[in-house]
């Protein structure tokens, strides 16, 4: 039982980190049909920014906020410089965002050096609670709470506010939204910056969790995020949460019970989804 709870917490916390990355990816794709291959780079920038802010201010709140701001700024630059020129042109878009991924990942090495950097858990969140026989690591619980908090906030915005309505309508039919006199490009810029900020927040939360950060971490996580987007359905916000938790839990259980299969399990889920429900589990009707 204790083992099961711990595995579940591990899986959920990894799942939440992937969710933060995948949710932006999926909304950006849903709204403008732009698949941002540089998203993992924004995640890595978030991680570095978080660690850096934490090392100067030694306040984890400042670190998270700093990472979010850095992410949003980078998102602004990406959208204006990289996505705009090739807007609506699928192949150049895919090519150029991957190129940008390369550049920003290398820039990390220029700014902070090519070596791995250690990241520490802030004192308030380090250690663990003992509940009965079960040992719960505080920081992992914190990540899970943050993930649900972010999901709750954005779910509320999407469902209850005007901008959320515009975004949801845009995912279903962005031409129609434009025809109603809404500047969808401005909405898109906003969504893009938000997605980038979420990715950066994910990175900043990831750093103390894994203990070290390195420039290539963006690509590693981006691959998981892509798997999640395929499983959850491109453009679906709840779908990305569900799929991220699924991937996180599957990875955590498999790594313990059938370690040899832990790699293949994501692959198998993705292939099954592509065969039986290629639009994803929570496809948005468009």
């Amino acid at each position, binding site marked *: 039982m204790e083992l099961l709870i711990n595995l579940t917490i591990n899986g959920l916390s990894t799942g939440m980190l992937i969710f933060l990355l995948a949710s932006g990816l999926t909304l950006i794709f849903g709204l403008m049909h732009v698949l941002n291959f540089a998203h993992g780079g924004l995640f890595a920038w978030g991680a570095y920014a978080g660690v850096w802010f934490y090392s100067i201010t030694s306040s984890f709140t400042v670190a998270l906020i700093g990472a979010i701001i850095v992410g949003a700024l980078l998102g602004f630059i990406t959208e204006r410089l990289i996505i705009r020129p090739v807007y609506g042109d699928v192949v150049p878009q895919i090519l150029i965002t991957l190129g940008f991924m390369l550049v920003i990942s*290398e820039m990390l090495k220029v700014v902070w050096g090519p070596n791995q950097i250690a990241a520490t858990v802030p004192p308030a969140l380090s250690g663990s609670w003992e509940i009965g026989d079960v040992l719960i690591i505080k920081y992992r619980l914190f990540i899970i709470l943050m993930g649900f908090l972010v999901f709750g906030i954005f779910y509320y915005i999407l469902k209850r506010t005007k901008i959320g309505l515009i975004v949801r309508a845009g995912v279903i039919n962005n031409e129609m939204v434009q025809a109603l006199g809404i500047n969808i490009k401005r909405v898109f810029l906003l969504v893009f910056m938000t997605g980038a900020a979420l990715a950066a927040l994910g990175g900043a939360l990831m750093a103390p969790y894994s203990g070290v950060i390195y420039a290539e971490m963006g690509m*590693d996580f981006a691959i998981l995020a892509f798997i999640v987007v395929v499983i959850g359905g491109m453009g679906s916000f709840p779908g990305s949460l569900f799929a991220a938790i699924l991937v996180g839990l599957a990875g955590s259980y498999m790594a313990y019970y059938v370690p040899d299969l832990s790699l293949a399990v994501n692959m198998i889920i993705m292939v099954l989804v592509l065969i039986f429900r290629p639009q994803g589990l929570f496809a948005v009707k468009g």
Partner: protein
Amino acid sequence: MEHMLGKINLKSVYFWLIVLVFVLFPFVIDSRPMTILLTQIFIFAILAMSYDILLGYTGIVSFGHAMFFGFGAYATSVMLKNIDSSLTVFFLSIIVGMVIAGIVSFLIGLLTLRLQSHFFAMFTLAVSGLFLVLAEKWRSLTQGNDGFTFRAPEIFSDRINFYLFVLFCLVLVFLLLRLFVNSPFGKVLIAVKENETRTKALGYKTIYYKVVSSVDAGVAASLAGSLYVVSLRFVNTSMMAIDVTLNALLMTIIGGVGTLVGPIVGAAIIELAKHNLSILAKTYPIFERWIIFFGIIYILAVIFFPKGVVGTLKEKWEGRKMVRQQAMKQKEDAA
């Protein structure tokens, strides 16, 4: 008609002349580093051409090309190390790599090519990422990131022999791929690239064409991998990393998509640039981060120079020819 025949002959004469120059090259200029550099360029030219079949002729973006390169690389190095380092095993290993690459690219294509192009890019990226982890974890076979060295077939201990063999492969692959893209089948591929919906409406099963194209590209990439490890006599997981895919992408884009010659030129440009930048990096450390320069050039090329070197030259040349023909016609009309 006669005029056209003459032109085709002239073109192939130029082609074989260039091949001849490269065949004679190592005998005239006896420089080991130069031979090795050219060998590398030829190998990457094969890889980039295989990429061009996908990107330039079928209009699909794959981010998993490193995986196919890696299949060839590991098939050859594992077999040369564990069986023996004879020429027969080498040829067998090339075939094994190609078969694995063919099967995997067939399955991937079948699964994702009927969907939007994003899926193929994403799926190939994910699958190749997973294969990279597999190669890192399966240490008994691959020895992970440390890699292992092995003996190449005896005959290739002479660098010139290997150079000639790689050149032969390059010419063969070029001719075969040119045959492929100029065939009626290749014309359908170009139609898919230009407008898939219309091609479908004309009654073509486009998925079939796309899958064949992806298998073709995968198999050719595997050959490049097999050759590459023999040139280094070493293999490790970096040969399956995303950098290989990016290299192929960069070479194809800079050289010119959809031209087949372009990727060869691109391979030469990129390899020479890398070679010189790594020399520069010894004095100016900033050049150690050459990926940034390449990345920026690549982004600018995608936006402003989408046809690449060869594509742009070709366009200029054909434009001039058209002007000349028009002028001639006007003269005739006047007379």
